[in-house]
């Protein structure tokens, strides 16, 4: 059921000041149309709408994000509002106290914005560049792998196992992130590999 006139597109149409006659053409009585014509512009009418899924629990409620700016068109997009997706079969537009405050998470003051390094014994983080961060990681992992990868076990069988580097993966990321992560982690021989399903 892809309804032709969703609640939101109706709001957008009417809020954007469509003439009463066209509302009448949509099947509304004149009095209602006249009233609708006086309603001020719907605040979200100029926003870009994006479908998403709540990032918290695995009820996986549908949400609609409203942004100023269209990311898909290459613009900078600022998130303004998130609401439940009324078309979603599971949540039918409702959200719980967590989901209703999703925007607060996206815009939390404690969001990380810069790669940072804490040096041994130090009491603070310092900002570093992505390049510095990646060079440090690549060097450390390569050195650890070269030093500690178990290529063959005591019986001389190839085992290519690395136990001195480990990896915990994020179960709020996508399947696609998961697959890219799996490839990189296992190609290095890492066996200490888990996600939140373990707890």
């Amino acid at each position, binding site marked *: 059921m892809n309804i032709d006139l969703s609640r939101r597109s109706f709001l957008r149409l009417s809020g954007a000041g469509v003439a009463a006659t066209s509302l009448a053409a949509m099947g509304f009585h004149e009095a209602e149309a006249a009233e609708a014509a006086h309603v001020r512009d719907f605040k979200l009418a100029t926003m870009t709408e994006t479908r998403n899924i709540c990032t918290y629990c695995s009820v996986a409620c549908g949400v609609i994000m409203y*942004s100023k700016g269209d990311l898909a068109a290459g613009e900078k997009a600022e998130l303004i509002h*998130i609401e439940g997706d009324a078309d979603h079969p599971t949540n039918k537009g409702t959200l719980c106290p967590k989901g209703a405050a999703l925007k607060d998470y996206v815009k939390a003051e404690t969001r990380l914005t810069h790669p940072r390094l804490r040096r*041994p014994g130090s*009491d603070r983080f310092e900002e570093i560049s992505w390049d510095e961060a990646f060079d440090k990681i690549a060097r450390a992992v390569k050195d650890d*792998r070269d030093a500690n990868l178990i290529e063959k076990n005591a019986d001389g069988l190839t085992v290519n*196992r690395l136990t001195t580097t480990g990896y915990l993966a994020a179960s709020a990321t996508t399947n696609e*992130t998961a697959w890219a992560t799996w490839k990189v982690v296992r190609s290095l021989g890492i066996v200490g590999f888990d996600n939140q399903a373990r707890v």
Partner: protein
Amino acid sequence: MTNSWTDIKNTDLVVIMGGNAAEAHPCGFKWVTEAKHHRGAKLIVVDPRFNRSASVSDYYAPIRPGSDIAFLMGVIRWCIENDKVQWDYVRNYTNVGYLVREDFGFQDGMFTGYDAEKRSYDQTSWEYELGEDGYVINDETLTHPRSVWQLLKKHVEIYTPEFVENVCGTPKDRFLKICEMIGETSSPTKTMTSMYALGWTQHSKGSQNIRGMAMLQLLLGNIGVPGGGMNALRGHSNIQGLTDVGLMSNLIPGYLAMPRETEPDFATYMSTRGNKPLRPNQMSYWQNYGKFMVSFMKALWGDKATAENGWGYDWLPKLDIVQYDAMRMFNMMKNGEVNIYFCQGFNPLLSFPNRGKMTEAFSKLKLLVVMDPLATETAAFWENHGIYNDVDTASIQTEVLELPTTCFAEDEGATVNSGRWLQWHWAGATPPGEARSDVWIMTQIYQRIRKLYETEGGKAPEPVLNLAWDYADPEEPTAAELAMELNGRALTTLYDATDPTKVVLEAGKQVSGFGQLRDDGSTMGACWIYAGCFTEDGNMMARRDNSDPSGMGVFQQWSFAWPANRRVLYNRASCDPDGKPWDPSRVLIEWNGEKWVGPDIPDIAVTAKPREVGPFIMNPEGTSRFFSRKLMRDGPFPTHMEPFESPMANPLNPEMRGNPVARVFPDDMANMATSAEFPLVATSYRLTEHFHYWTKHNYVNAVNQPEFFVEISEELAAEKGIKKGGMVRVWSKRGQVWAKAVVTKRIRPMICDGKPVHVVGIPIHWGFKGAARKGFGPNTLGPFVGDANIETPEFKAFLVNIEPASEGLA
């Protein structure tokens, strides 16, 4: 979930035990409300606390944390005694008639083959008796003393209502009322659904809790039917997907197994995975294992995987032990055996037990890399926050890299809900500052390590250099590219096996389902159960047609559900042996004389004739199991085991502590308490206003639940002189926390083994970062031991003590 959230509306009875859906999964719980209103369904809640689910239930009973198996075996016993059994289902679709080996036995709470030194069973005797034809012997009369049915009856005999009352603290009249309500769903036209979560998994015998309910559901004929099933209400938004894609120490995507070092080559690896049927005519679908494994290897190594090199088998790491699970890694870390650790969107300092041990472990690392959208406690484990994180910063030599990642709003891709729906989402916001996607970060790490191997050489460079990385932009694969790999495609043109002139699929085309995957290297597919999610018709996960013509909550055109877009697993069992739906008013599929048809995708070959092929096609028996053979480490039937820290001895065997085969590291055994020292039972829980340790970063949620507390009964408060809202200290053998006391009627003392048992409820949501007040969590206190099969920590039942504390402390 075997079923889906929207299917819950089809049920007649909801049992919430081992979860608290109204509080933790509120928008999914709406389908319980729907069933109550429109079908007259009833809701039973069994929980140590009169929680928010209990407050809207039709019937509630308390239970002592960690005694669920006794309760469930008691219900099974009652159903058998009162003939509340869906006999047509049980006789035809389960293994009740199969004979078990003569040397199998059970005594003093233990099965045959226990080795105390190894903390393990020799499982040889836990197996069927096979006939000369190689098939398991079936006694249709169910009278043979070694039939599964007779063994089951004997196994549950001890779980009388009196035994249940004594062990669980559940009043006998409440237990019996629940038995009666559950027993009604043995009717072929009545169904019950089980909704559970961490309340069942976070025990040293969590898997057996779930088996207990699964067996009860089989007895009642409630698996595979609309409104029935075993429904795990999973936590994070993609915890299902991360498990499907095999991001666990022992997994390959699609629930294939990481090879062991006892399997030196591909042929040996495959030799134990033939999955020959154990009964005539059965599909035993895992016979296709090789097709899925070879297609996976082609996805992983591309052209480098050949038949000659065992599809690149040597390049996969080989396990020397069953699990390098997270707790083992933290134990190794504490022993100085781990140098580098990555935490991607994971905050283990707050989520794994014995926080003191966790801090010690992280302090031994050379490098900790944290990738997260938020500032986590784990990334800041070295910061001193007074009593909330009392560490000596200067002495901690670990280097910590904290990398800012995007969150859901800034990222594209699929997440898998509890009901196995792969739902695509799109990015709609610009990431803050320099935050980047996890895929980009992983790619940068990979490309730089790869470059080092290319320029410097090094140890075993092949797996790094041979990894397939065939993306349009090798610096940043797109979500669509990765999703298409998960689906799989033909590498060469595929021809029909019976008619070689007929093209099944052109080279380069996406497969339409896992039936097209092959074991000769002509197909690739990273995760066979996802085949069909991104086909030549496009991205099936992005579908948004929310029509439901059958009214059964199936939503076939909404997103994509694995496997094969099937919405209810085992749905063949929703029909009688002749293929007629048990309940004509609730139809998922039915046999029309030629094939299976209906609103859902049949969980059987569409032309498989009734009475020939059993409904449980993944099992070599074709039936489902009351007796689980060697598949679980702690027994083929669930048996009552106490938590490792318990207020009473196990009545089946007073010498037994916890789960006799659960892994316990030496230091941790010494850190386990007895009830003489710590008389109170602690259990962790979640609040509806918070999600784990994220929402405390949000102002709104922090206002709604600003402060850490513990919840106790009025009786315990009076006994200890604790005031409502007063400050208390709670301590275990491993640590201590300070909290506000919430004194409620929601928790009441229970009488177990003749003595009162007090419960202390401890919510999980506080730490020392974010917008909420600083606080603690139960992981400061909990024991470092996990489930014997899958190593999920025992957070739901351990011992503590409590006393009033001075207000100035916290």
